């Protein structure tokens, strides 16, 4: 039986121009799903919760998808109940999402809420799915500083795709326009909590100033003029090269940069 992979996509926002675009991480989630299709012979469903008339969906379809599924929702509706309801019945094995949406609240809660609702494990910030054998997936997590961690998780699971995953392929206009976008009726629940919020354009955040809490003029003068003198470290002058290297090695082990 082929695996069922569902990639969730949303409407992105270009960071400079503010235009709508294919969301960066969602694109990577689709790319990962398409690569799995080649390796694992799985089925990929690309799912969007929102309006099926959305032109951005064509840019996802232009990656080479014959069709997209859309759960018809209005602007003020909550996407989680609709998605949860769909996934419960869709018999999915892997659900891929971005880490955070580029529009709306962008809280990054959708994968967590879906995982909680479905009772599936959640794998945060994945870089790649290495293999899937006997219903257990080997996954690479993206850690800060370019590091990776291997994790194994049983199917089914929800995963959010990090920026470290393979970049989304180019989208083609013609195939995108020809793709079938199928709108489905969905459970609609108005997000009432959000209706009570006030949204405004982001104000630039103040930079943190270096405040000198000096009590006397002499202290203030020192703070303004003196070089910040860190604690002088250990200096090894007369030791042999071997002793010096041993000391350095000890520090490296202590800081756990070498294993």
């Amino acid at each position, binding site marked *: 039986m082929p695996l069922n992979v569902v990639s969730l996509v949303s409407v992105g*926002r270009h*960071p400079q121009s*503010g235009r709508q675009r294919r969301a960066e991480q969602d694109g990577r989630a689709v790319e990962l799903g398409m690569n799995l299709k080649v390796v694992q012979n799985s089925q990929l469903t690309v799912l969007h919760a929102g309006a099926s008339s959305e032109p951005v969906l064509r840019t996802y379809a232009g990656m080479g998808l014959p069709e997209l599924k859309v759960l018809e929702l209005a602007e003020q509706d909550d996407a989680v109940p609709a998605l949860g309801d769909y996934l419960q019945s869709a018999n999915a094995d892997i659900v891929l999402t971005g880490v*955070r949406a580029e*529009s*709306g*609240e*962008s*809280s*990054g*809660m959708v994968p*967590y809420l879906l*995982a*909680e609702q479905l009772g599936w*494990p959640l794998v*945060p*910030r994945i870089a790649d799915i290495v293999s899937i054998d006997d219903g257990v997936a*080997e996954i690479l*997590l993206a*850690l*800060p*500083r*370019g590091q*990776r*961690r*291997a*994790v*194994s*998780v049983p199917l089914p699971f929800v995963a959010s795709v990090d920026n470290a995953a393979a970049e989304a392929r180019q989208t083609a206009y013609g195939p995108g326009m020809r793709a079938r976008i199928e709108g489905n009726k969905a459970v609609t629940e108005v997000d009432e909590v959000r209706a*009570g*919020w*006030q*949204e*405004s*354009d*982001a*104000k630039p955040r103040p930079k*943190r100033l270096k405040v000198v*809490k000096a009590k*006397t003029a*002499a*202290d203030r003068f020192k703070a303004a003029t003196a070089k910040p003198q*860190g604690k002088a*470290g*250990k*200096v*090894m*002058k007369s030791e042999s*090269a*071997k002793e*010096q*290297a041993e*000391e*350095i*090695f000890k*520090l490296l082990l202590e*800081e*756990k*940069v*070498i294993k």
Partner: protein
Amino acid sequence: MSGEGSFEVLRRDPRAEWIARNRLHPLHGTINVGEEAEVRGPSGLIRKNPHKVGFIGPNGIKRIDRLKGNATAAGLGRRSSGPQEVQLPLHAVENPDFYIVVVPDLVGGRLTSQDKDVLGQAHKLVKGIDGEGAVVAVCFGESKEEGYDTAGVDRLIHLGGEEYEGFAPEQRLAALMQVEAQLQPKHWLFPDSVHGGADLGSRLAARLSERPAVQAWQVDHASTVSRGASGSKDIQRATPRILLLAEECADPIDETRHEAQAIELAAIPLTITRLKDQGQVAVDPNAIPLAEAEFILSAGNGIHNWEQFHEAAEVLGATEGASRVAVDDGFMPRFRQVGATGTWVTARVYIAVGISGAIQHMQGIGQCDKVIAINSDAGCDMVKRAALSAIGDSEEVLAELIKLMQAHKAEQAEGGDQNAA
């Protein structure tokens, strides 16, 4: 001051004052002329005697201390050894009415600057809410931090068991649920970071069915402003129970000391973890962008044996960096240059081999935690900045380092074989 006091008539004793002034008077010794004795003028104002200011120095010359006690004690023949440790006032919470829980990232076992900001934010919230509150820090894994008290931790829950080490979000979530049941905290504060704070906070929010504020940057007890739509919108709302706080959300605690008293948790059930951590994967250190690299071996003008340098970087598993001179001379590519004109690095450990430390280079490594210098000149700026410096021939030290590392690897491989067998 009471209202009656201000109408009180000031009574003076001119004779006593005269005796106090006249050092030759036989009764002068009986009248208290201590430093604290204040002399009042006819209008009731305190008068200062300008002749009594200062003290007689060691040379018999009168010295006036205008530094209000901040002068070094050089006159007394003692040299103070560096800045004195200041004991900050203790902020004690005996019977807290409520708790605010902070879950710091504790990267490398130490509080990050964002963790400290979040602790500062927690105290800001405590001040805004009626009653006495305590800030609880829940720390997972190994902790090397010693400054919990000065960072603002009133109560500390440290869970250092093996089940919390590495990547264990499910077990950590179980522990947080136990904290929730035991303390019923008013707020949960997480740093919104890639080090696991955002992940754990979102997990807890989903489990408790609370709607968190994410990328919150302006928080008080009533309202919260958070960034939405990938940082292009500000969302203002009532402060929720769970907050994922952005960097520099509040000022860290710096004026008080806190108790950092340990709290015992009831037994936490071991959860069946579905996510199995298989450990970190070795990545090619030179594929990591220089700005993100954790461990950099950097070369400068003092390197003559470049083959050995590359070998050392490979054996140690360090990302290669270079000073401007090494790049200009064509020994290293331009994108490896560290410094103001190259890359600003954030490595935790930075080994500078044969780099004396031009100011542009020092700016580039400003955010590095531990700098190790290997240099032939003991007086250079890099040695002043370094936590550990080896003065000598860099080629010899690197050769010894390579030997040590190879021995270490061989030892580990042996240990691994034994484990496997």
